[in-house]
């Protein structure tokens, strides 16, 4: 089922979705785009490349409240914070980011230990994937093509969208998506030409080139293991690194968090907050010992987690090549170049 509407009618679509639940979509902010809960239908803006913060925050928000309590009172009076989710529509997610949800599922539910917050948010959400605009050149930082992700892969989305000038085409991918789409009566059927355009567009998605290099996960994992103790290599790689939290916070596949008690006067909340392996105190132990005191040890952890340990443990690279870490790194540290350099001899083959 391929339906369509026009870009100028987006507010109408937004209004229909907001009537059914919560709409989370890209909006333009001072520094760029971000996914936000929509309060005004005119905010939704699909003329964007990608957002600063990845859409992981729809399922794994930077702050998630768990328990509320009063200091000095009995623990029996503490109350868990209930998640009362309305159906949520995550609108306009790029294919590489959709792919990241599957990688994150491994950690939040796939290992058997289910994170109820992630799980509930995942279940409540319908994903509207959105193909990249292939008429525009790929951002210099991106490399999702290297990781086998096309610019227009509908896999993982419930509904997939392609924009052709001012026409927005929407195709049902899953039964969940179908149920929703049948209720959106103002969408009109696409013409035969448009159906062809849509199908061709998706097929072309893998010809569209971001930075590309050949990847053999086994070779990568092996090479990173071989250079783990090569302090010179890692020192050079991290000479510029500030050890800040930008790369991990914008990344769709970083999932580290901290649980803290935060109180204001006597009102306390136990909440989960994003943490980052690049922070100095991330590995600080209660004894005062810190196994990672050097910047290179932290950057090595970040890179090897994604490109080595993750392969060994779960068989897949924990990176989707969205390029955010590179794009927003204040000193332009580029994970693609690091991987390329680390395993150059074995698998580097530029097409």
């Amino acid at each position, binding site marked *: 089922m391929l339906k369509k509407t026009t870009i100028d009618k987006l507010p109408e679509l937004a209004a229909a979705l907001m009537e059914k639940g919560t709409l989370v979509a890209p909006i333009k*902010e*001072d*520094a760029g785009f971000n996914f936000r809960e929509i309060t005004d239908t005119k905010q939704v803006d699909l003329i964007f490349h990608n957002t*600063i*913060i990845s859409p992981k925050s729809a399922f794994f928000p*930077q*702050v998630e409240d768990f328990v509320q309590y009063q200091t000095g009172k009995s623990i029996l009076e503490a109350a868990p914070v209930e998640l009362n989710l309305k159906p949520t529509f995550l609108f306009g997610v790029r294919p590489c980011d959709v792919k990241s949800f599957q990688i994150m599922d491994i950690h939040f539910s796939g290992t058997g230990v289910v994170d109820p917050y992630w799980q509930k948010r995942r279940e409540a959400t319908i994903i509207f994937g959105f193909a990249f605009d292939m008429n525009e050149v790929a951002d*210099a*930082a991106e490399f999702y093509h290297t990781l086998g992700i096309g610019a227009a892969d509908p896999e993982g989305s419930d509904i997939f969208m392609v924009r052709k000038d001012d026409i927005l085409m929407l195709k049902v991918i899953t039964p969940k998506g179908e149920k929703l789409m049948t209720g959106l009566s103002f969408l009109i059927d696409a013409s035969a030409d448009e159906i062809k355009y849509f199908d061709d567009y998706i097929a072309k998605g893998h010809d569209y080139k971001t930075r590309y290099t050949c990847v053999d996960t086994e070779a990568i994992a092996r090479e990173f293991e071989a250079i783990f103790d090569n302090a010179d290599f890692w020192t*050079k790689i991290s*000479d*510029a690194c*500030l*050890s*800040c*939290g*930008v790369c991990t*916070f*914008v990344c769709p596949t970083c999932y580290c968090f*901290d649980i*803290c008690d*935060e109180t*204001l006067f006597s009102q306390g909340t136990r*909440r989960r*907050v994003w943490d*980052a392996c690049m*922070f*100095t*105190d991330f590995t600080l132990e209660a004894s005062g010992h810190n196994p990672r005191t050097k*910047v290179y040890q932290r950057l090595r952890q970040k890179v090897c987690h994604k490109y080595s340990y993750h392969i060994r443990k779960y068989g897949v690279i924990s990176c989707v090549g969205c390029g955010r870490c*590179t794009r*927003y790194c*204040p*000193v*332009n*540290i*580029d994970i*693609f*170049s690091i991987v390329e350099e680390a395993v150059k001899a074995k698998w580097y083959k530029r097409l």
Partner: protein
Amino acid sequence: MTISFKQIEEKLKTEAKRLLESGQVSVVLAYGKGYDEKHPMPYVARNPSDVANIVFNEYCNYNMARYLVRYPAGTKIAVAVKAADSRAVIQLIQEEKVKREDLVLLGIPVYGMKNPKTQEIIDGKTTGGLYNPVLYDILLGDEVHGQAIQLPYDVLAAYESMDKEVRFAFWKKEFDKCIRCYACRKACPMCYCDPCFIDQNKPKWGDKSPKFHGNLMYHLTRFHHLAGRCIDCGECSRACPVDIPLYLFHKKVARECEEMFGQAAGMSIEDKPALVNFRVDDSDKILE
């Protein structure tokens, strides 16, 4: 006059090579190739052969003074410094974090530097109205003279015209965008505390979550820890992934400090940091 970035790059390479070959320094902090032309990186040359990787272009904004404290005391370091960066070195010398005799300053007189994200020329905003390094051992080009300057506090006009409520609302809106990635403090040459107050949990000074109270605590404290120390390089604001104009607050505090104590940060190695130096004739304005 126009700046030849290529020429500066050549001189930077020549001097770096000479210093490393002679063994005068073991490390040269400069700029190197990034993943494309627009995105050069801070670069550390340790061997004469590393020098080939050095670049200099209008996007080399990094304040290399930021990396000085990373090396063990006594390491002989050559560091490339533009005007503001040289002030950071001076301030670090005043604060006894580095020693003058351990450093070779490769001064870069330059204007027309650009922010790669916005393509905006950053001169007026963040070089404190200076194009020539304040302190250097070797100058890698002719001093800049006659180039129009925007004074460091000119950009404050709109900000200073806001009254208290409007200003608070302004910062509230800006801080609401903050994701607490700490790129601002990590990019700052003067933020060298380890641990930073905001990372301490005994006592805990501020919340970790990016909500109003914690953000306010983090930023206001950091702004004030930079009082009389911020040398106006603008790195904090450029590092910020959500473009919070931190420089406005820093400049405002810098201006007040300058008016009260008659000295700007990092202008002379003979100065003492304004806030640790007691003089009988100090302004009492701070107590009013």
